[in-house]
């Protein structure tokens, strides 16, 4: 670590934040929260949008280094390929905090800490709920899975975590699993087709709320009751998802909160104050059942 004396003379902390892009509502909420938290914490935020391109993010980080910001935070587009630029930051004695997504660097001294969710764990939580829920089920449990963009880290991990958890019960089987690109429109379209091809399905697991919400429309159009005929598990817990959960259309949501701004700012201050911070900070996240959702919904910001 290094002292808070580096950088601007006015004593105000400057943070460079390199965001992935604005590919989803989740992401923009994340951006907004960080911006607001920075303002509240009196930290000057330099923000850049990489438009989903790793090279742009690297560029942005380099420019932060050149501008001698006090601390850099970023959500990596990809897990790998960061060693070089992180080393540059380290050489410039600028601490780096990773948000939301991890990197796979061997050398963990390259960054101070990671704050974000564990996608595998999210998948696991979803799977565990299903395993518990399926205990009561008389027959086989056939799951349709709506995946996020092929190749993206949340899709990979939420799929893997879920698969691992449902191993516990041989009754549970994934009968179909297709890419629905994290969007509502695709969720609806894919679910329409999968539902007809697999009428035996009775559970839907969607990698995010939006796909689940789209799928609900498809299920309703098919004359079935979402949440009853088809149990639905999703990840994220955005407001729309929570509303559906409270309405009984979704059965279980694993939270993946974009609201890590305050935690990030606290961590930043700690790091700059030279305090020891844990290498990995998980965002304060929980899971919601329908009852919990009803309770939590009123003060849901996002």
């Amino acid at each position: 670590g290094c002292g808070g004396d580096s950088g601007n003379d006015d004593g105000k902390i400057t943070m460079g934040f390199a965001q992935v892009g604005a590919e989803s509502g989740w992401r923009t909420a994340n951006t907004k929260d960080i911006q607001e938290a920075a303002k509240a914490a009196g930290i000057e935020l330099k923000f850049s949008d990489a438009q989903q391109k790793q090279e742009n993010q690297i560029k942005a980080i380099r420019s932060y280094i050149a501008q001698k910001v006090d601390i850099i935070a970023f959500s990596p587009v990809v897990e790998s390929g960061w060693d070089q630029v992180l080393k540059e930051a380290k050489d410039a004695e600028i601490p780096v905090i990773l948000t939301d997504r991890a990197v796979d660097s061997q050398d963990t001294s390259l960054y101070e800490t990671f704050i974000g969710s564990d996608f595998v764990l999210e998948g696991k939580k979803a799977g565990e709920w299903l395993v518990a829920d399926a205990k009561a089920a008389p027959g086989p449990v056939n799951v349709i899975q709506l995946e996020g963009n092929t190749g993206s880290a949340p899709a990979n991990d939420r799929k893997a975590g879920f698969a691992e958890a449902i191993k516990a019960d041989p009754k549970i089987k994934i009968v179909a699993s297709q890419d629905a690109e994290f969007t509502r429109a695709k969720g609806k379209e894919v679910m329409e087709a999968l539902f007809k091809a697999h009428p035996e399905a009775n559970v839907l697991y969607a990698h995010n709320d939006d796909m689940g919400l789209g799928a609900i429309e498809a299920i309703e159009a098919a004359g079935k009751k979402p949440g009853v005929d088809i149990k639905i598990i999703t990840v994220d817990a955005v407001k729309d998802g929570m509303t559906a959960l409270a309405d009984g259309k979704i059965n279980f949501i694993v939270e993946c909160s974009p609201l890590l701004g305050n935690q990030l700012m606290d961590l930043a201050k700690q790091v700059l104050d030279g305090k020891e911070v844990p290498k990995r900070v998980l965002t304060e996240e929980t899971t919601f059942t329908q009852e919990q959702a009803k309770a939590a919904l009123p003060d849901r910001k996002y």
Partner: protein
Amino acid sequence: MNRFSTLTRHRLFWPAAALVLLLCSNLFFSADFFAIRLQDGHLYGSLIDILRGSTPLVLVALGMTLVIATAGIDLSVGSVIAIVGAVACLRISNLPDQNSVGGVLAAVGVALGVALVLGLWNGILVAVVGIQPIIATLILLVGGRGIAQLITDGQIINVRSDPYRTIGAGYWLTIPVAVIIAAVVVAATVLFTRRTALGLLIESVGSSPTASRLAGIQARRLTLIVYVFAAFCAGVAGLIISSNISSADGNNAGNLIELDAILAVVIGGTALTGGRFSIAGSVLGAVLIQALNVTIYTTGIPNNVTLLFKAVVVVVLCLAQSPAFRAKVFRGRRRKSVEVAA
């Protein structure tokens, strides 16, 4: 035999054959794939899904067909879709009563008006300023997405409006409204281009701009009309997409649809170099692409193989359509038939 060979030589034979083949292949995975029943007072079945699901692409491909016929291209359709959806949903969500038909119609009108303006922008850049179409529309592809996000503030705007929902998810006389809308727009376009001289003049401008100018055709005005029309079609598609899910997703709506639309147009037999165009072909191409998507879902092709599968289908289809390929592969047979004739 002879009749069969004239049939196979028809422009639309191969896309149609591919469509039938794709649909049939679904039967192995879902036995009642072709079943259509009445449910809750409307038609229900995979084929209906395909038709309804293809409407946005059909519309976009329709506009794209005319643009391509003038030897242009419109990359901005996806952004137009996003902006139109955003404008419509934003206005509706601000209505005191989201279910008021008048309010929804006004919102739809404003959104389509915005689409026309965007089309005019493209058209002016291409026809008046003289910028190469791919670059002229690239500007709106990039900037337009930003505008859509600006309108939605990067979030998804939800609406709860039954009249609006009808556009994309409703039914009229058991038939999906989206399909009716698309059919009407397609029919109107066919009438408009083929019953007036518009089609001929567009084809002329597309295949030889210099000769057309010297024949007195005012290419500039035509080009302008065509880009405005393409944006209009994209706008209607944008309404259908956002109404189908009762929300506007400025970040993702219509993303990359331009590629699918161009693909549909080309499969339908319109050359990217401009000139002759086939609206029926483009519609068929669009439905084919949607059928391909649905087939991928139904057959459960693993996600990491999906793209390869698409590539194979596209290549096989294009090869089957290519006279050069048939000539080269079936050369032996053709030679013989000539000898018989001689």
